[in-house]
């Protein structure tokens, strides 16, 4: 039996791995089109500003550079591409992880506090559910940046809010990225508590004089964690789009920031920018894919655990 399960896991992993490889190849082929790709009007007809031969050569070069690992050694103005990728990935990953942690940190307590409002029905509940998720990131970022500027210029806070010099520059992006997931976590937490509130074991515990804290620690928390695991794919997708916007708005040089820069600015050299763009988009794709798979795995793993409990 165990070997069958193992086999199934291997098979699934292999399948996912193969799919990821396929996606990487597709991305490398797509990004063989030069970053300055354009259409033009030549001799009365629309024509592309590059040749199929050039695209084919780029594709071969991209695949070759990537699978031999030489792509990481390509020299850019700010060091090798591998170095840039490593540093920017670490920055993005830190913002992502700490953002998620911060979201959990304020989302769960808020959800617990909101559990009373859960009893409210109708409009207010609907509005509470809808409004936070209707807010575009830009509005949140604007609020944070206005506040940051005010605090910084008036000497209330030493935290800078643009670019990257020290780790302190990551603070505002972390706060900004945690808002929407935090709201979602709060909603999930509150709903989880509401689902559990009428369970017989909760009633019994409450009847026997169990304190709210103990009730939360022993009973609710388990359900909340399981529900949050279930909500993780949605949260991660939400955060992934946000990080692109946040890095751009805070001039935070992470993965997404460079990706956009390579594409729009070419950083002086179209050919090298194209190679860098290919690598960064693959890195983003892999990052997103792994996160999603992790979340998906947790969701799949949680379902039977939750049902059995």
């Amino acid at each position: 039996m165990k070997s069958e399960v193992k086999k199934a896991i291997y098979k699934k992993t292999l399948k996912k791995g193969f799919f990821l490889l396929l996606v990487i190849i597709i991305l490398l082929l797509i990004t063989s089109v030069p970053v300055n790709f354009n259409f033009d009007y030549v001799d009365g007809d629309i024509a592309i500003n590059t040749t199929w031969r050039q695209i084919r050569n780029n594709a071969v070069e991209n695949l070759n550079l990537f699978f031999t690992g030489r792509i990481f050694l390509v020299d850019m103005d700010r060091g090798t591409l591998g170095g840039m990728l490593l540093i920017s990935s670490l920055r993005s990953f830190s913002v992502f992880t700490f953002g998620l942690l911060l979201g959990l940190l304020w989302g769960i307590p808020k959800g617990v506090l909101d559990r009373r409002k859960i009893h409210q029905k109708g409009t207010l509940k609907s509005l509470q559910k809808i409004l936070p998720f209707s807010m575009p990131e830009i509005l949140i970022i604007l609020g944070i940046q206005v506040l940051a500027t005010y605090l910084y210029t008036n000497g209330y806070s030493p935290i800078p809010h643009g670019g990257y010099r020290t780790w302190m520059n990551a603070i505002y992006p972390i706060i900004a990225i945690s808002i929407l997931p935090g709201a979602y976590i709060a909603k999930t937490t509150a709903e989880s508590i509401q689902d559990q509130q009428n369970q017989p074991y909760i009633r019994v515990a409450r009847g026997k004089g169990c304190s709210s804290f103990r009730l939360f620690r022993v009973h609710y928390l388990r359900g909340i964690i399981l529900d949050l695991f279930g909500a993780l794919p949605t949260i991660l997708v939400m955060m992934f789009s946000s990080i692109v916007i946040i890095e751009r708005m805070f001039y935070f040089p992470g993965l997404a920031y460079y990706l956009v820069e390579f594409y729009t600015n070419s950083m002086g050299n179209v050919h090298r920018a194209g190679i860098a763009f290919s690598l960064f988009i693959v890195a983003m794709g892999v990052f997103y894919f792994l996160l999603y798979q992790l979340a998906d795995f947790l969701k799949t793993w949680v379902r039977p655990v939750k049902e059995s409990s």
Partner: protein
Amino acid sequence: MKKMNITLILGVFIVATLLLMSFFPRIFSNNDPNLRLGRIQVHEVEQNGEAVREFRSAPHPPSSQALLGTDEISRDVYTRIIHGTKVTLTCVFWVSFFRILVGLPIGLLAGMRVRYIPKILRVANSIFTTIPSLILCFVILNIEYIRNLPLSQSMPIFIFILTFVGWPKLASLVEEKTTKILGEEFIEGEIALGKTRGEIVRQNVIPHLTPSLISWGFLEMGLILFLLAQLSILGVFIGPRQGAMIIDGNPSWFTSLDPEWSSMLSRAAIDISRGNYWLVFFPSLAFFIGITGFNLLGEGLKEEFNKRDSRVVSIIRRLGYQLSPKLYLEQVKNLRRFYRPVLIKSSALVLLLFFVFYPNAESLYAFNDHRAVNHLEAMTHQEKGEDGVREYIIDEMKRIGLLSFPEEGYGMDSEGETLVGVIPGENWERVSSGKEDLRKDYIIIIGARYDGIFEDDKLSSLTRATAAANNLALAETLINTDEPLSQTTLIVFWDGGGEMVNMAEPNRYMVRPVFPHNQTDYVYIDMGYAPNVEQRSLQVSLYSSRAQHIQFQSLMHSIQENLEKVDLRHHFSMNMRGSGAVVSLYLNSRYSLMIGQEYYQFMEDESNELFDVNFEFMKKQGQFIVDFITMTDLFD
């Protein structure tokens, strides 16, 4: 008492207001969205106890003059938000519609487990799971060609791309719901009755799916609006962009021509860093309100559809029933009994058909294309080569009755190679006497090249003569109008020279010799070469260094409409194109419109014969300019 669905009411209220703003923006703001309010404002401030005057340049913060402030080129933010609602919502609506149109059948087939469809859907979903739609949209929609397309061509591309990246998610929802419905007990009953799968889908699945689909449609609109807001921050928005603050022909940055919500956020990072918060806050707020409206409507409907005795559901069902063509045909058959609904429905149908198929206004004056062909033949059979062509043009200008001004003869430069004839307009006296109203008066210059037709007195390119031939025929049409044109028009024939001249040159070079005493403003129309028979479209470009000029946007739309009216297949761009000799003329014009091909390889071909010229395009080219000058009231 029944409990009111406030979520739905709020959603309907917000969406209805947005629709009102889309269709009747003038109710909310009477200003032109491209109108530039005072660029420099004078403020009285106190400095060291003294009142001093301070000059502040745009952008201006909210004030009584501009409720939500102005942008960097002094356009009213409030007016642009109001007028931008239409473009943004149109895109959102069509994307949602097409996502449903694609997602519904695929989701249904996947739910019914039809062959490879579930697999295809899973793969599509996996691909869009691996490549985030935001990045994909950014990469595709940021291509320079797409960024420069006019709104009418940019919008379909946006709709296509946003539909493409979003349909699998919706199809998956449909698949999930279909599987759920097909698993219901009553379906077994239907199978027992002997219904086919198709019948079950048509009679059971779709009716059960419709409420969810309506609700998803609105929620999808919220998501699309969200995506548009995200794309805007990456500098991607619907419609063309135009350079702003052009110094030495190079724009310092780009701004949108058409008012649209996302375009207003395209410089958000810079605006925030400069402390121009209102430029980001109000458009973001518009997005927030829009997304909230669609989400409330979607959730409200979902809530309503879950009720057993929902009035909204019965209204929707009744409406669907009333609008069914089957019922209409039945009612027509029993006209005596149902004459009222038939009358109402028929009137609505006629109105709708009239609106859709409303014919365009006929051209006031027909362009004489036969005359153009005659000119072409005459010009290409000159024994004296290029000199002969020049003499022919001068003779024709005399015959047509073009004025030569201020001197005798039409030669403008010292060599007499550039030829100019005048068609006096209503403002002729004012502009020729130098007493024109500089704010209102201007002239139209229509130019065409006539060089390169002969080489050593031997015909080298017939196609090169098409521009001048068309220009002569055009002059004849325009001078013979029943009433004089409102603006004086110069018909110019350029002789070669591809060199760029000084930026300040055109006024001196072109306008001043004709009107030496003033700084006459002008609109330049460049008559390009006719295409050959193999070419499928004509090149049209519009350029203005003052693109944010009042009504430029309406002008651009009007040009598009006129091109469609004469059924001219074209490639539109917002770049500076046309004869090299007059490049700098474009830069100082109110705007320049280039219509016709630039130089192309075939022109120098030895086999360049008369029958190779695409006369159909040549005719449309001339007719378009005639209509544009005589029927479009957009020069002011």
